[in-house]
C-alpha cells in the first residue's frame, strides 16, 4: 500500500451492518471479522476510486487530525487487511 494505492474490497468480501447484533461485520469465505469503529470509517471510503492519500485527507478533515499521522495509521491498517486477503489495491491489480 502506497499513497497512490486505490484500495477496494474484493467482490467476495462484504462490509455490512448487522441489525440483529447491532455491529458492523466484514464477511469473507469461512471468516467473519468485527472491524472497530475506525476501521469501518476507513473501509467505507475504500471504493477503488479514492487513493490512500485522498482517504487520509478526508479522514484528517473529518476528525481535525494531522494528515501524515492518519496516512501512516491507515496505511498500516489496510496493509494488514490486504495481507489477510480482505482488501486489494486496484492500482496494482
Amino acid at each position, binding site marked *: 500500500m502506497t499513497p497512490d494505492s486505490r484500495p477496494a474490497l474484493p*467482490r*467476495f468480501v*462484504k462490509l455490512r451492518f*448487522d441489525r*440483529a447484533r447491532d455491529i458492523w461485520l466484514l*464477511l469473507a*469465505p*469461512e*471468516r467473519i471479522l468485527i472491524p472497530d469503529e475506525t476501521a469501518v470509517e476507513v473501509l467505507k471510503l475504500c471504493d477503488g476510486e479514492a487513493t490512500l492519500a485522498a482517504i487520509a485527507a478526508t479522514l484528517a478533515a473529518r476528525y481535525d487530525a494531522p494528515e501524515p499521522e492518519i496516512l501512516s495509521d491507515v496505511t498500516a491498517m489496510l496493509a494488514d487487511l490486504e495481507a489477510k486477503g480482505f482488501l486489494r489495491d486496484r492500482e496494482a491489480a
Partner: protein
Amino acid sequence: MTELSARLRPDPARSHGIPIAVLAEITHRCPLQCPYCSNPVELERASAELSTEEWLRVLGEIADLGVLQLHFSGGEPLARRDLETLVARAAALDLYTNLITSAVTLTEARLDALANAGLDHVQISVQSVEDALATRIGGLRGALERKRAAASWVRARDLPLTLNAVMHRQNLHELPEMIEMALDLGAARLEVANVQYYGWALKNRAALMPSPDQIDTASRVVDTARERLHGRLVIDYVEPDYYAARPKPCMGGWGRQVFNISPSGKVLPCHAAESIAGMRFDSVRDHPLAWIWDHSEAMNRYRGTDWMPEPCRSCAHKHDDWGGCRCQAAALLGDAGATDPACAFSPRHAEVFEAALAFSEGSDRYTYRDFSGGTPERDG
C-alpha cells in the same frame, strides 16, 4: 470451520445465541456415491424436497433470525435447477453464500449464472489426486478431471475457492500431493477432513479407518505445510476422533450457533443428528424457523450444560467442547446423552481406541451410498 471473533459466539452462560450459519442440504440427489457421505443412510427422495417457493420463504426466515452465512449443500446442490434462484434470493437478503459441491456436473454457463446471482464462495470436494482412486471412491469415471476444470472456471471468475479433501486409510498417503493440488488449482483454503464415523462412514468403518501411524504422519505433513505455505494457503485440519484425546466442540455445541435444514425441511442441530435413534425433528413446513430454533424439543435436548452427565458436568472444559459429539456417543455407546467416548475422560475411551485399531486392519471394500440403503463394491 469458520474463524469467528469471540464476540459473535453466544455467551457461555446462555444455552444458545443468534445462529451464525446454516447448512442448507437442498437435495440428497448426487452423481457420486462416496462411502463416507455425511448424509443419513436413509436418504430423502426428490419428491419429498422443499419446493422453490418453500425455500424462498425459508431463506427470508433464515435472514430474519440474524444468520450470516448460508452454505448450499446436499447431496449435490447443482441437482436442483432452481439453485440460481435460491442463491439470488439469499444474496438479496445479504446472506454470505457458499456453494458446497462435487462440481462434476458444473458447467461454465451454470457458474456464470450462479456468480451473477451473487454467489460469494465455492467449495469443491476431492476424493483423490489419482484418477483411478477418485473413480473408485466416488463411483463416477472422469470425476477428477471435471473437478479440475470446474476449479479453473471458479478461479477464472475471481471467485474464492476452497478444496475439501476427505481423508481416510485409502487416500491418506496422498496428503502431500493433495496440498500441491490445492495450490495448483488456486484454492485459498484446503480442508483436510478426516472421515467422521456416522451414517455411511459408520457402515464403512472397516474400509476407511486409518492406522495410528498414518495419523501421526498426516499431522506432521499438515504442520510442515502450514509453516511453508503461510499467507498462501490456509489449511484446516479435522483430526480423527477415534485417536484423539479431547472431543471436538461439535458444531460449536448442540444448537448453539449453527443448524442444518434437510431436503424436506427438517431442522437439525447437525447434519448427522438423524443418526440418533428416537429423535424427532421439527420441519419448516410446520413451524416458523424462529420458533424451531428457540423451542423445538430436538434443538433443546442437548443444549448448554444442564443435560450433561459426569464426568462432563464437573469438567473444566465443558464450556469449550460442550461434551463433544452426541452422534458419536449414540453411534458408539448407544446413548446420545453420554460423554463423547472420543474424550480421554470418558470411562469408555479405551474401547474406542481398541475398536479403531481393529477397524484399521479391516477389508478395503466399500459399501457405496445410494437410495437403496447401500451397495457393496464388486470384486476386482
